[in-house]
């Protein structure tokens, strides 16, 4: 440990605000990027599932979770391009 106490670790001899602000921004942006990308992929997967369900010539299985989507008529899900 490079610091004597937890307090010293937080203040970093006066440089604390700079160091912690940098790390906060880094973690915040990375978390937003990673969670956002993950959620979006799953949302797109979900929309593909609904698409396929409503267009598929085969009748959807009655107990599958795509069944409600199949009853909705031809909803096009617009997803942004990023």
């Amino acid at each position, binding site marked *: 440990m490079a610091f004597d106490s937890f307090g010293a670790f937080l203040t970093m001899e*006066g440089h*604390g605000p700079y160091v912690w602000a*940098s790390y906060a921004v880094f973690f915040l942006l990375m978390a937003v990027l990673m969670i956002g990308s993950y959620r979006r992929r799953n949302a797109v997967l979900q929309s593909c599932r609904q698409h396929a369900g409503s267009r598929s010539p085969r009748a959807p299985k009655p107990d599958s979770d795509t069944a409600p989507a199949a009853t909705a008529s031809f909803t096009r899900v617009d997803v942004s391009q990023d």
Partner: protein
Amino acid sequence: MWQFFHKLGSPKWFYGIATRLMPWLLVLGLLCLGAGLVWGLAFAPKDYLQGNSYRIIFIHVPSAFLAQSVYIMMASAALVTLVWRMKLADVFVKAAAPVGLVLTFISLFTGAVWGKPTWGTWWIWDARLTSMLILLFLYGGVIALDRAINDEKSAARAVAVLVLVGVVNIPIIKYSVDWWNTLHQPATFKLTEKPSMPAEMWVPLLLSVIGLYLLFGWLACLRMQTEILLREQRTRWVQELVHGSVSFNGGAR
């Protein structure tokens, strides 16, 4: 060789590989980055000149390094798009650009915050900082241009040309600290020399760089999967995938 090339161009094949690779990239990336950052923040000795503010290096250098690497990867992919019209290359460019934008922003922000206690100023218009700002605009330009063109093929070509033109900025960023007088310190890692810092400082730094690289790999796979699904949602394999008859274990049921 050509068969491999063909496979590489197949979105379906890539989707499967990505699904299998992603858990490893995520776990190893988080482990490396976590170890590097905890080591760097709490255990590495303080710098005799800059004090504790230098600990920003453990996020500043990895993000700046990645920001440039990502651009070089995008430029290679752009070349492939133009020469071989490979769809996956264009998918990569689109998936990576926002990540590059965020990384460039992080490196500029952490650089500014580090500059205040070290140089006494948040910002100066010197070569390194300005060329990095241009990189930020390049990423922004790539994203904007892609969104502005509706036709997929024209967008791919226009974006590829922009990315390739912008690559001239990369050597400028890299050598700016040698070519011009600047407040910015020279590179920490060089391929040909031993690092000028002690091992307790450069080992955690290297760990964070590797960790962030792996996390970029994870992000790129994930975002490429999204783009592939959007483009191929009408194809047979995507429909089979979402209905569970094709499984790439995990992610997609």
